[in-house]
C-alpha cells in the first residue's frame, strides 16, 4: 500500500456533491478557513467537518489551488460590456422594497376579499385548471409537410428553467420522394432576441452544424449530410439585448429514408 494506491483508490471513489450534510460551513467560514483565520478548537471543529464533507472540502481546495495560480486572462471586451449592462436600469433598493410591500399588501387584501365573498355565498369552488404548456402549432409549410424527417417532442433538460421556446423541424418532399426543400428549422421568435444560434447535435452531443441567424427559421444547407435513420437534436440559443441568453428545449428528429 503506497501513495499510488491511495491516488487510485480516491480516483475510483465517487464523490457526491449534491448531498450536503447538516452543519456545512457557509461561504464566509470557508473563505476564512482558507485565509487561516481560525485557530484552536474552532479550527479543529472546521477540520473535523472537512474530513467528512466532500462538498466543503471541494470549496476549500478550489480556493487554495486557484489563488495560487496567476490571473492571466482578462475578460474579452464584448463579454465585459454585456456584464456591465446587467447593472443598468436596476431600480433602487428602496423603490423595490416599497413596491414589494405594496404588492404584498394588495395580495393580502384581495385574498381577504375573496375569502369573505366565498364564505358568504357558500358556493362550490370549481377546480382551477392549471395553465397548460403552449402547444406548438404544426409547422405551416408552403410545400407539403411530410414525415421524411420524423419530428418528436422531447422533454426539457432536467432542472433547467431556461427552455422557454421550442424549435420545429420541417422537411418537404419533391415529386420523386426525395428531400426537395431540404430541412428547415423554425421556432417562435423570442422577445428581445438580437440573434439566434442554431445547433444540430448527435445524441452523443457532438456538434454536426452550427449557425447564427437573426431570423426565426433557418434552412439546413444541403452540404450538411445527415444519416438516414439516425436521430439528431436541434437546440437554439437566443441572445437577448440585455446580455442574457435563453436556450430552447432540445428537439429530436430522425431523418427518414429518402
Amino acid at each position: 500500500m503506497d501513495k499510488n494506491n491511495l491516488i487510485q483508490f480516491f480516483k475510483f471513489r465517487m464523490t457526491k456533491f449534491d448531498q450536503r450534510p447538516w452543519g456545512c460551513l457557509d461561504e464566509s467560514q470557508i473563505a476564512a478557513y482558507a485565509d487561516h483565520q481560525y485557530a484552536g478548537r474552532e479550527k479543529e471543529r472546521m477540520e473535523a467537518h472537512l474530513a467528512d464533507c466532500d462538498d466543503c472540502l471541494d470549496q476549500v481546495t478550489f480556493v487554495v489551488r486557484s489563488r495560487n495560480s496567476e490571473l492571466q486572462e482578462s475578460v474579452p471586451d464584448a463579454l465585459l460590456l454585456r456584464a456591465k449592462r446587467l447593472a443598468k436600469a436596476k431600480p433602487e433598493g428602496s423603490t423595490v422594497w416599497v413596491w414589494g410591500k405594496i404588492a404584498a399588501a394588495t395580495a393580502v387584501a384581495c385574498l381577504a376579499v375573496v375569502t369573505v365573498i366565498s364564505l358568504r355565498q357558500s358556493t362550490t369552488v370549481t377546480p382551477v385548471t392549471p395553465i397548460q404548456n403552449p402547444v406548438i402549432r404544426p409547422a405551416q409549410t408552403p410545400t407539403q409537410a411530410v414525415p421524411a424527417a420524423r419530428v418528436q417532442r422531447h422533454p426539457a433538460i432536467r432542472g433547467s428553467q431556461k427552455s422557454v421556446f421550442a424549435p420545429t423541424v420541417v422537411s418537404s418532399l419533391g415529386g420523386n420522394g426525395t428531400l426537395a426543400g431540404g430541412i428547415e428549422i423554425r421556432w417562435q421568435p423570442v422577445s428581445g432576441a438580437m440573434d439566434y444560434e442554431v445547433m444540430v447535435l448527435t445524441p452523443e452531443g457532438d456538434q454536426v452544424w452550427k449557425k447564427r441567424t437573426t431570423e426565426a427559421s433557418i434552412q439546413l444547407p444541403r452540404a450538411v449530410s445527415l444519416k438516414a435513420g439516425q436521430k439528431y437534436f436541434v437546440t437554439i440559443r437566443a441572445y437577448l439585448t440585455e446580455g442574457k441568453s435563453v436556450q430552447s428545449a432540445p428537439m429530436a428528429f430522425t431523418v427518414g429514408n429518402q
Partner: protein
Amino acid sequence: MEESQAAGILERLASKEFEPAWSEFLGAYSPLILQTVKHFERDHDPVADCFLFVCEKLCEKNFRRLRSFKPGGAARFSTWLRVVVHNLCRDWHRQEYGRHRVFKSIARMETLDQDIFRCIFEQGLTQDESLSFLLPRHPQLTLAELEAGVERVRSALTERQTWLAGARRRTSLPLEIDPEGDPRESAPELVDPAPSAESVLVMNEQRGALEQALRHLSKPERLLIKLRFERGLTLQETASLLGLKDAQTVDRRQREVIEKLRKFMADSTTGRGKT
C-alpha cells in the same frame, strides 16, 4: 489596499452610484470570476454563458450577494468572492445539465446495473476499468456479464439521458495529482497515470480493507490524506492550509498515516485469516 478598495465598491453598490461601482468591480474582479468559471467550463460559449450567469446573480436584488460580505471580517474579499463564484458556477452547471440525480429508469434496475451506469455512462470508465472497480462489490462479475449489463442500461436510457450523463462527465475537469509534491510546475493539466492491470488487481483486493482503514483514522489524519491524494494539494499547500510547519512536516506525517493504514490493513487481513 485591496480590502479598502473592495469595501469602497461594496458601499457604492448600495448607493445611487451603483453603475460605476459595478463597472469598477468588474474591472477589478472579472479576471478572478473568469478564472473560476474556467475551472468548470473550457469551451468558449459555455464559459461566456456561465460568466454572465454569475454576474447576473451577483447583480440580483441590488447586489444582495456582494453586499452580504462583511468588510473587516475574518475572510479576505477576494477569497470570499472565489467561494461565492465557485458555488454560482455549480448552480449554473446544475441548471444547464440537470441536478445529479439517478434517472428513474436506472433507479428501477438491479444494483449491478446501477453500478454499471455510474461507471460506464457517468464516470466514463472503460469496460476493463469498470470491471476492476466493480469486482469487489460483485465478485462473480465477468466481462461478458458486464457487457450484457451495459446493453441493458443502454436500452433503458433515452438518447437524451445518455447525452446528459456524458455532458456531466465532460464538464468535470480533471484534478492534478502528483504524490511527490508539486505537479503544476511542470504541467498545467496533469492527469494521474492510468493504473496497470496488476496495480488495479492489487487495488481491488485492498479496496475494502482500505475503506475500513480510512474510517479508523482520526479526522485530522483523514483530512491530510484526502487533501494530498484525493484533492491533489501539494505538500506546501497542505502545510499552509493545515497550519503545519513546512512541507517536510506534512511529508513525515503523511508517511506515518500511510504506515498506520498499512498496519491496519495487515491486521484486518490477519484477523480474517485466523477466523
